[in-house]
């Protein structure tokens, strides 16, 4: 069954603005990951946050995790046209050896 649900489904911003995408999930997790998919390409792993972490940074990316609300957010600061892509969250179960379950993604368009 689908685990992650991204919100919003689509987001359009101007270059230089910040973009925030949210992800909600249903069951307990070991970690939550964010991936980017450019049009016609495979997914690229961006960042992983463990269930005992609350915030993590990587370059212009900032991820937060609230396990009490079963939600995560991905913030992209100072967006660029090259950030235009779909962004997916993925979660794994806390029982180990469970495959990742992906949400439907947020389609981000950054307008130059």
């Amino acid at each position, binding site marked *: 069954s*689908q685990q992650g649900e991204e919100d919003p489904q689509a987001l359009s911003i101007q270059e230089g603005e910040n973009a925030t995408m949210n992800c909600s999930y249903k069951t307990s997790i*070991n*970690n939550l*990951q964010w*991936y980017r*998919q450019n049009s*016609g*390409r*495979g*997914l*690229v*792993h961006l960042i*992983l946050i463990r269930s005992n972490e609350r915030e993590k940074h990587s370059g212009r990316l900032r991820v937060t995790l609230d396990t009490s609300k079963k939600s995560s957010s991905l913030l992209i600061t100072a967006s660029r046209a090259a950030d235009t892509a*779909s962004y*997916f969250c*993925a979660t*794994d179960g806390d029982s*180990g*050896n*469970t*495959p*990742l*379950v*992906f949400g*439907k*993604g947020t*389609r981000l368009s950054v307008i130059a």
Partner: protein
Amino acid sequence: DTAVSQTPKYLVTQMGNDKSIKCEQNLGHDTMYWYKQDSKKFLKIMFSYNNKELIINETVPNRFSPKSPDKAHLNLHINSLELGDSAVYFCASSQDYGGGRGQYFGPGTRLTVT
């Protein structure tokens, strides 16, 4: 240099045919996966496989079967293709079983069944 490669990139075929998609990873990973991405971009796991265990998503029709000649390859065979099989199929690999430390994806194979 490509970490995870798939062939072909595009595959157009008729209903009822049998086809295969090949996947190779040069990362030395122990686990490989096949995903199906539908027209609404929903990514669904089909198989997880390492040298010890194959886990099949129970919703996947048995017309789909993974074949692994060695640790670096996981091919996808599809028998009696149906219109609903049209989608983009992604191969992925990870160091750990389950991908809890991140998965590496291939570029995808767009399958069109006519």
